[in-house]
């Protein structure tokens, strides 16, 4: 939380409708301390649990945590949060990071949803495959090489050369990178068993400073899908090439694993640094 009751320079919300939001808040606090110890200029960060449109409106950036995406989506709808979230991510293009369930909600297209589908927020031109690896018994940990941590802007992350111990719980993966289109992903809507997010055009003012490029692949998990038992899933993927488990497109970042379950704040430090640059109007990716 902001110290000394001063107005915060940057307010980061964590969507607290359901799931592991408290874990993100804890890591954000750690990450802010690390950034503070490195930068000459101290910033007043505020970290906020977000359950209402008013709380969301006070945020400069947002994390959508792990949890059950079906639950979050339904609760968001019934709490009048769905449209404000779409505005935040797609119209105002504020920095947003989704982990696991959060990644699903931020995808423009998702498959293997519950019968009758589910509402998505969208923002990332990707298709995610829910519960890709199977049920809980297939949940696992893996050491990941994340290039963006190594290249983090010359910043001295103490353990830069260490792999990131990533935890995958009934995790989704990015099954397909989609072309950027004006309007909804209509091609995707025709694919059997997928749901797509509704399109929301970017705000005209915001569009002057934000360039919406293609989706960047930020992390790969090698070789895991090659061991999958489910042949139908395997066929659709180039399993040997590895699974896409981290992506970014303009303001939106998504990981299919749970950095919030690891005692390792490196990704939170990196992301807060991105948020700082974004809110200070530096060049947007």
């Amino acid at each position, binding site marked *: 939380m902001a110290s000394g009751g001063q107005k915060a320079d940057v307010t980061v919300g964590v969507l607290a409708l359901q799931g592991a939001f408290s874990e993100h808040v804890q890591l954000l606090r750690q990450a802010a301390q690390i950034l503070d110890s490195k930068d000459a200029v101290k910033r007043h960060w505020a970290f906020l649990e977000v359950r209402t449109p008013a709380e969301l409106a006070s945020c400069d950036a947002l994390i959508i945590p792990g949890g059950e995406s079906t639950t979050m989506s339904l609760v968001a709808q019934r709490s009048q949060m769905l449209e404000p979230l779409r505005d935040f991510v797609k119209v105002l293009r504020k920095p947003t990071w989704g982990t696991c369930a959060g990644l699903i909600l931020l995808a423009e297209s998702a498959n293997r949803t519950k019968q009758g589908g589910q509402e998505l927020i969208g923002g990332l031109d990707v298709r995610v495959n829910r519960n890709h690896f199977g049920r809980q018994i297939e*949940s696992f*940990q893996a050491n990941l090489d994340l290039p963006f941590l190594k290249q983090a802007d010359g910043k001295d992350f103490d353990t830069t050369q260490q792999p990131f111990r990533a935890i995958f*719980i009934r995790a989704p993966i990015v099954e397909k990178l989609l072309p950027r289109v004006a309007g909804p992903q209509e091609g995707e809507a025709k694919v059997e068993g997928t749901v797509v997010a509704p399109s929301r055009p970017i705000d005209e003012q915001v569009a002057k400073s934000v360039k919406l490029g293609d989706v960047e692949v930020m992390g790969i998990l090698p070789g895991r899908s090659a061991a999958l038992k489910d042949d139908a899933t395997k066929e659709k993927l180039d399993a040997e090439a590895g699974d896409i488990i981290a992506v970014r497109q303009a303001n939106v970042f998504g990981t299919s694993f749970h950095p919030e379950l690891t005692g390792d704040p490196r990704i939170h430090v990196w992301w807060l640094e991105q948020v700082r640059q974004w809110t200070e109007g530096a060049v947007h990716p």
Partner: protein
Amino acid sequence: MATELPINGGSGIAQNGSPESSFTVKTGLARMLKGGVIMDVVNAEQAKIAEEAGACAVMALERVPADIRAQGGVARMSDPKMIKEIMAAVTIPVMAKARIGHFVECQILEAIGVDYIDESEVLTPADHAHHVEKHNFGVPFVCGCRNLGEALRRISEGAAMIRTKGEAGTGDVIEAVRHMRTVNAEIAKASAMSDAELRIFAKEIGAPFELLKETAKLGRLPVVNFAAGGVATPADAALMMQLGCDGVFVGSGIFKSGDAAKRAKAIVQAVTHYKDPKVLAAVSEDLGEAMVGLNVGLMDAKDKMQGRGW
């Protein structure tokens, strides 16, 4: 949630498949369920209603506790066919119950692929003295407790999640409150103790010393803790959340009520917005008949399920 649960996941380069790594994955799913409602369902149709209402998981069982109570007899693990139908009907995690100490029922549930096993006092116990050794399983376990000692014994056996027991199938929240308050009070007491005092307290409550010490330091249970047993209304659910639990199990309270879908949705909203009385008032409106319920104060001790478990 009164107290946050510190992150204890591995960092650095732990070995794949090490016990520590496996426990992180087991407790990880419990953390993902927090702030949510887990609903008892007896068939695929109810499971879909629960999913549509926003349940973060369902508990597959043959009879809800209220019916087990009414019908009597020995209550066992459900038919795997029924559990598989429920698993096929929904995409949210599916839990299932095994009898206390019945490790073969647990092996069967693991083989089917359920996401969590509840070693539950709602079923008739299969062992007069032992609980299942839960560390040996790949699937995570949730277990009931009435007090801190019971909770820590279950965690030491390998439970990755705890629920306070309450009194299942009654719709009377008093026991859920009693157990939550008991756990909270014992943790508060332990937190003020020296190591020497904690050793005596550990003996008194039958808890492993190291786990008790960790709990005292954290000021809360070291794993996710849901409330269970008697939650029937949105207000009951929010009450348990304000008392400090991480989420809520609702058993008979939903499908023994007049309008199950509406009540289920209302309880889900109440758990998210548990601190906001205006939302609680709005979702409590016009829910129809709550389950009739049994007054626990008028029950015989032999009729209570909470005493099962050792």
